[in-house]
């Protein structure tokens, strides 16, 4: 899961701490999401995107990583 939180934060001139407080998580969680170490829940993903007034797909991009299975 890729995300553009850092870009949106820069656009809104927000620190990680500001965003963390607004969404009810710790700064470490925002940092972990930005670095791709942690995939947020749907609830948190929607909170973050609503805070930036955009759709969730604009902030988070799902990267396909599915193993192919041969179906006869």
């Amino acid at each position: 899961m890729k995300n553009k939180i850092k870009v949106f934060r820069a656009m809104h001139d927000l620190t990680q701490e500001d965003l963390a407080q607004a969404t009810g998580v710790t700064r470490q969680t925002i940092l972990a999401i930005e670095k791709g170490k942690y995939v947020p829940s749907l609830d948190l993903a929607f909170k973050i995107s609503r805070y930036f007034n955009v759709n969730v797909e604009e902030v988070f991009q799902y990267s396909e990583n599915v193993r192919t299975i041969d179906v006869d």
Partner: protein
Amino acid sequence: MKKNTFYLLTGCIALLLLGLFWYSVELHTPLFIEVGFIVGISTIYLARRTVTDIIEDERSAKITEEAAVRTFQVFWVGFCALSIGVVMEILYIPSFPRERSAFRPPEILPPRMLGYLQLVLLCLMIFLYVGFRIYYARKYGDWETDEE
């Protein structure tokens, strides 16, 4: 309740439990420490719910959950293996073919030995949990640093 007050309370309870443990050993009455432990841990749980300045978000909950599940998955194997061993000790296993000379009385582990086994299991559980907690905290970016 403030975070520091909670930590202070937890430290006091730990010291009290240590004293109670010593007292129970001296009197050779395990009931004191058993009841004290339950009351102490329940007090810590109740006090933890009133702390206002600790943010527990979904990531920290996930770290706790994953560490607990992995600890359980590993611990129960060791626990069952040791328990089976102890059960084997207390059960009389007849030898085949059954001969009168092969009869032996059942060997029962002394309580002191059982105590050591419990201690090993307790230490195993604590080490596993701490180890898994460190692993998952690292995996989910607990010690990541940033330019901010």
